């Protein structure tokens, strides 16, 4: 593969001179994101743990969003999906996303229902 590496990340905001440089750049970015996650996990700002969105703490939504960001850069730059044909990229990315979103939606709804049965359905569990 006489590689045409795509050397820009953040939608062209940051352009690297060589592939090696881009790799280190992505490493720095991933490390920063992980550091933010860990810091938030240790501090647990009250503003984020006491506000909810769609039944989940705001902090947890932030964690999930940051995770997806990390996953994106690992797949795009380390697994060099950025350099693959878009048809291959779409087949790889959207198939699992669709199936996982479907599964998670069903399972979490069902779990919440079971939780409500345990709580309100005269089931004694704490004895």
């Amino acid at each position, binding site marked *: 593969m006489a590689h045409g590496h795509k050397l820009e990340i953040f939608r062209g905001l940051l352009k690297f001179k060589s592939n090696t440089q881009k790799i280190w750049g992505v490493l720095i970015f991933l490390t920063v994101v992980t550091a933010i996650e860990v810091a938030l996990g240790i501090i647990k700002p009250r503003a984020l743990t006491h506000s909810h969105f769609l039944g989940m703490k705001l902090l947890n939504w932030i964690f999930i969003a940051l995770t997806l960001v990390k996953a994106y850069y690992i797949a795009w730059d380390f697994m060099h999906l950025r350099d693959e044909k878009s048809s291959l990229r779409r087949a790889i990315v959207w198939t*699992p996303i669709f199936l996982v979103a479907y*599964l998670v939606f069903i399972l979490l709804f069902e779990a919440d229902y079971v939780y409500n049965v345990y709580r309100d359905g005269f089931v004694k569990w704490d004895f």
Partner: protein
Amino acid sequence: MDSTVATEENVWGGGNRPLGASYGKLMMWFFLVSDALTFSGFLASYGFSRFKFIETWPIADEVFTHVPFFHGNYPMIYVAFMTFILIMSSVTMVLAVDAGHKMKKNAVIWYMFLTIIGGAIFVGSQAWEWATFISGDYGAVETKGGRILQFVNAETGKRAALADFAKTIPDERVEHNEPNGVWFEAEPYVPSYSVNEVMEGLKANPNIVIRTEAIHQEGEHEGHKTVLTREQSLEKIKESTMVVEGANLYRNEYGSRLFADFFFFITGFHGFHVFSGVVINIIIFFNVILGTYERRGHYEMVEKVGLYWHFVDLVWVFVFTFFYLV
């Protein structure tokens, strides 16, 4: 990159690569997508159980608090370190792939070597994490209903270990060892304290109270486990049936039984992936040294194991989030 591929471009004649990737690479992606679905299934079922017991699920920050060689309470630090090691070894892997494209054999060898070292450190850390989790640190008792009761010091609010307050009552039963029996079998395990000793210890120490699994859903203590008063504690301890120390597949001192089951299963499955990744990396590492890919004219094999290695890293990012952060 494949010099052997025929140039004919007709659809059924072979040699046609509409996705611009070789057969081997496509098959690696097939495998990775299906493996991703397997992991998603595990994590989704973890989410199911967690949402089902949302009010009583253990709080990860209180479970994984240890760092090797350091005493004290450092939640998250060690897993963060493990995450960084794995990302770092991913970086050396891409660098190996990049050096492969430029046909720099020695650079590939060094980067592969560093990748293998990183993987080994990660697997070792995970083994340590398991060992710490299995041996536990404070101990707890289980009630008739299978709930876990932990103990805290009412004055300091810190967790109290069974050893801090349990009474030693002589004339309790001892562990049955292999040499003393008619049959050459030892008893599985007898906890360091009996339920009776814990009960008496609780009665004798006025500053020890019980902490239950239930998490406050609102109010001042939202997000924290419920701590009982002294009177409630003395009442609650009567329901205890056994002492639990550490974790196994049946019960664990941290709370919900499923928590330990999922922990062992998911991190175990991931650890197995890392382990097999290291083994495959070692094989490729020796192939590079022997010059196999130099003769073949390209280092695509390094790229393929690289994909697997990055995938392992990718999965860890999710495991890290859902087990330790959320």
